[in-house]
């Protein structure tokens, strides 16, 4: 069995196998909270697993770059200073992650193993098997087809499932995915033509339901060639509430801050937490000078990073996977999410 192999298995059998592997691994999957919201978290059993979701508003990058993590603890009270790191985590399975979030992880991998090799992030990536679930139904804010972010992928996952009704079609994406199927003796058989054409139909139907609201190409050209009027950036800067929501929920955003939390004079922890390029404190220098002191400059920077050719060339793709989360969380509703900005840039250039 090689990467690229397509298999088919009954849903029930696959889930039974998933349940078995909980003895050895932490299975993270979608579950319904008391208020009805669906969110991803560790599952103790499959009882709380739900398929009634399009996506978690809280991006799944949090399982690799947690919003707050202790990098190390220090204690200088003894004769020698002591440093301790959090213990390694159990192997994990991330089950049901959507294609856009997988593509987001691929994007983040580029950052965290590029110029700087981030051991903590990469250890979690290595430790986690990605079993993604292709989207049969998009949200009203989804536009992944504009960014090669879904609804299904060719790579980036270990196993990709497509819900065919009674069965899952499985794309094997890596050796780790293959080993998982073998180790847990998942009774999958080679997919037939009917299964593949059924998947094609489902994905085409999903594509058709998605409103292609974000044609990125034109905006990329305008931004790259600096053809956006300053007045437009000025206007967008004034509109922005600097809440940082767009960056927190973006599967491609990687910004973080590191702070020391002393507990008394001799011990404490060093903590890493999410930060946002939309906050003025993010770029303020020690001298007090801030290259992006105003919201206008920060908004401009965000979209340069997402859409300019220099970054697309560096990363291999734009900094957007079309998950549509920024459309939901933007406090300036409908004005500053990426699909709105792309539209405004396009209109401005006409």
């Amino acid at each position: 069995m090689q990467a690229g192999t397509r298999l088919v298995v009954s849903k029930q059998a696959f889930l039974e196998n998933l349940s078995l592997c909980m003895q050895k691994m932490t299975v993270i999957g979608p579950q319904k909270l008391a208020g009805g919201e669906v969110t991803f978290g560790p599952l103790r059993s499959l009882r709380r697993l739900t398929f009634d979701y399009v996506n978690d508003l809280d991006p799944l990058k949090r399982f690799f770059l947690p919003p707050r993590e202790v990098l190390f603890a220090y204690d200088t009270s003894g004769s020698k200073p002591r440093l301790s790191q959090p213990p390694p985590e159990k192997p994990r399975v991330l089950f049901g992650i959507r294609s856009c979030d997988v593509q987001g992880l691929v994007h983040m991998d580029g950052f965290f193993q590029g110029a700087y090799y981030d051991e903590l992030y990469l250890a979690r990536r290595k430790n986690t098997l990605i079993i993604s679930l292709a989207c049969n139904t998009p949200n009203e804010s989804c536009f992944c087809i504009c960014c090669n972010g879904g609804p299904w992928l060719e790579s980036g996952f270990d196993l990709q499932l497509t819900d065919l009704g009674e069965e899952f079609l499985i794309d094997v994406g890596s050796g780790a995915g293959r080993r998982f199927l073998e180790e847990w003796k998942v009774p999958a058989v080679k997919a037939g033509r009917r299964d593949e054409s059924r998947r094609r139909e489902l994905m085409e139907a999903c594509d058709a339901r998605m409103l292609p609201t974000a044609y990125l190409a034109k905006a990329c050209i305008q931004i790259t060639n600096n053809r956006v009027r300053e007045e437009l950036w000025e206007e967008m800067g004034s509109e922005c509430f600097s809440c940082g929501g767009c960056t927190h929920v973006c599967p491609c955003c990687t910004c973080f801050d590191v702070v020391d939390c002393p507990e008394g004079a001799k011990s404490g922890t060093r903590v890493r937490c999410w930060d946002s390029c939309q906050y003025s404190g993010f770029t303020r220098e020690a001298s007090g000078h801030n290259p992006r002191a105003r919201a206008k400059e920060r908004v401009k920077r965000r979209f340069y990073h997402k859409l300019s050719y220099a970054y697309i060339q560096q990363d291999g793709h734009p900094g957007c996977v079309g998950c549509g989360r920024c459309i939901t969380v933007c406090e300036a509703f409908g004005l500053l999410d990426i699909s709105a900005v792309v539209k405004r840039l396009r209109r401005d250039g006409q």
Partner: protein
Amino acid sequence: MLLEVEQGVVLAAAPQRDHPVSRGTLCIKGWNGHQIIHHPDRLTQPLLRINNRLKPVSWNKALSYAAERIAGVQKAHGRDALGVIGSLKTTNEASYLLGKLARSVLQTPHLDAPLRFDHAPSLRVLREQSGFANATAALADIEKAGVILVIGADAKAQNARAGSLLLQAAKRGVPVIQIDPRQQEHSRFFRLHLRLRPGTDLALINALSHILLAEGWQAPGVTGLAKLRDDGLDRFTPGYAESVCGVGQDELRTAAELIGKASSLLILFGTGITQQANGTANVRALWNLALLTGSIGREGGGLLPLLTSNNSQGAADSGLMSEWGPGQRDLREAEARRAIESAWGCSLPSQKGLTLQEMLDQAGGRIRGLYVVGENLAWSAPESAKTLAAFDKLDFLLVQELFLTETAARADLVLPAASFAEQEGSYTSLERRIQRVRRAIAPLKGCKPDLEIIQLLANALGAGWPVRKAEELFSEMQQFMPCYSGISWKSIGRPGGVLWPAHTDDEECILYRKLIGDRQGAFTEVTAGLPFGEEPDEEYPFSLITGRPLFHRRSGTLVTRSFTLDKEDPVATVEINTDDAKTLKLRSGWQVLVKTRRGEVRRTVIVTRAVPPGTLFLPIHHKDGLTQSLMPSMLEPESAIPQMKLCAAKLEMV
């Protein structure tokens, strides 16, 4: 808002998509405010002042000491020598119980909440006129308004949700009229910005009403117009307003025409008009304007004060204001008193209670002991030096807090409270939306939820209260609060909770129509207004106004301890008009001393056209020199709110 928890640690906050107000959004404070929960400076043991130093003690010792000292103060100086100051951040249930403790166990009439400092006039006028001390409109009305008037408030900075809806309305073409001396970031999107002289709002609001009447633009069927004219509205001609406010008559007419010809008028207002010599008169004038346009009780119209805290409205509802008991019941009315007395099984103190600033002013005199819950008065009260001196005059200061604030540091005893993430209960938002808060993690070791602390203290004082949960107390509160009746604990646990008053769980919640109904039509008196406390003069030539920036909230206790929020605003600034800066030869980035008759603070200059000539703007609550230390504490006569929005000031080079 959801909290992401791992092994008892809150990692992050996330918005709720299906919440009817937030609709999946959070403001910068929502995203980052959780950082305080595990802040290393959290208090986790009671602290007792021994030999003038605060030292950790056990809860048992702390509670018995508190009871002993409170009893001592009351025995020596009378029951009313003790004052209690509640919080706008504690739950409804804790607020209710604190009121019950003060009025029934401690038997003191002196109970008040920091709502006094921001919206006492708003709630007073609204209660007088509609019978209920709350907004007549809800946030959703911003989406339905014909025209929106924003006065004395920067909605974007103070309430991002209101600011967002306002921006969307402006973008849709709904006329938004801003009345404020200072230009805000969103001003450019508003149809009209009337930049009045600081402190002259009353003349401007009345002039708008005057023009509406003169032009016959009032709503059909509005009665009582003759009385309104006779009361003195006729004096507020556009010419008079122009001379007082410095706003052109044409601009005034344009604004009045927009208001008069719109289907409904929604008024958003903030502390810019309440913390003034005319605080109450300003809100009355707004009530008249809204009534003239027939907007009270109509969809898309009415008055919406931008209350400043998560549970400001809840504090008023659950009885933390000195005038009102639970359910906003006027304690001067015999029937209201009797109902509470029979339920609580005690008699209530009959004298009128002192308000917050009065308690501080009378520290060491009538007031010998203070119990302060969750409010850093050293920052939020005007004339900070005087406030700190007031603490020193007390025989006993008890503070219930999360952190060792400047107020807690002066206390004789500090009780460590649990944060919002560690408590059960409910909050009532500015649009009277009651929502449950659920415990995400257990209280940090050594801390206790407010509710538990108040119960333990009451029992240490011999009350013999049974230990009760938030849910039980919510039911108990409901008997005094007709507006909360019929609302189940379960229903407030749903995303968005319930807008009160809702008499059944499923009833439609835009109910102010039913509430106000035929009361519509009562105009309030038109007053000439008082001059504001301190006019600029030769020695102090500038009008100094203050406002809250986006990253701040109340007295800074929480936001200065979130590392993300704290680093957003590292420099304490003063804004000065470009022309004034030229005259004084000042440049942005230079250091100056801002001086008033009460003190001075060092600030970094921002030269801008956002403030008008002759005016300085200081953001409130900066740890490098407290803005409030400069502001006067003299009281507005009707609502006893300190006139801390503006005063006279001068600049000196450092």
